[in-house]
């Protein structure tokens, strides 16, 4: 069974440019998460979807970040415009249930470098 797929694995962009990350969760997993992980830190939740509904986007900087999960399967996270401080690893995860008591399966992440 395929795990959580993310692309691209690496992205280097100049500041003020837009960037998008794509995630395909494990088949049948209703809950999808986007996390941000800075160097030497643990992941921090950006947004959580249950099917196509964003049920927790309180940590998503909505002035420049947006996300969608139109058909309740794969998801896209976008940053426009990117800032130097956005350099980090963006992780996508999925779980079968709502996540609090469920194992979350993580993708390999997208390492973003903003120059």
């Amino acid at each position, binding site marked *: 069974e395929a795990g*959580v797929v993310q692309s691209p694995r690496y992205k280097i962009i100049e500041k003020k440019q837009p960037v998008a990350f794509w995630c395909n969760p494990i088949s049948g997993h209703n809950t999808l998460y986007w996390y941000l992980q800075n160097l*030497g*830190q*643990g*992941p*921090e*939740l950006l947004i*959580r979807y249950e099917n196509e509904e964003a*049920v*927790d986007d*309180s940590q998503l900087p909505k002035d420049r970040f947006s996300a969608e999960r139109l058909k309740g399967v794969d998801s896209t996270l976008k940053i426009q415009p990117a800032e130097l401080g956005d350099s980090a690893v963006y*992780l996508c*995860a999925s779980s079968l249930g*709502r*996540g*609090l*008591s469920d*194992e*979350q*399966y*993580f*993708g*390999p*992440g997208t390492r973003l470098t903003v120059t």
Partner: protein
Amino acid sequence: SQQGEEDPQALSIQEGENATMNCSYKTSINNLQWYRQNSGRGLVHLILIRSNEREKHSGRLRVTLDTSKKSSSLLITASRAADTASYFCATGGVYTGANSKLTFGKGITLSVRP
């Protein structure tokens, strides 16, 4: 904000030794989970312990939870070089709904010397 705080920040041991990592948290939890992250890769779930459990085992892993002290420990017995990774504890809050989420600590870097 990150609720779980792991201790120590870094740990270096010899292959075959046991590794003990600790996690403390501040607010009431529904469960506590431990994850492992190898360099440059995503996190892998290791074990989950619920707030009404005190100890749990999985292979060479043993997790304890003391809700009165708001702390947990992860013990890896007979460590191997392949256990070299960062280990994170993550706490699941008691609230349900939109504000419920897993909160990760900063992680512990474990190095197992061959």
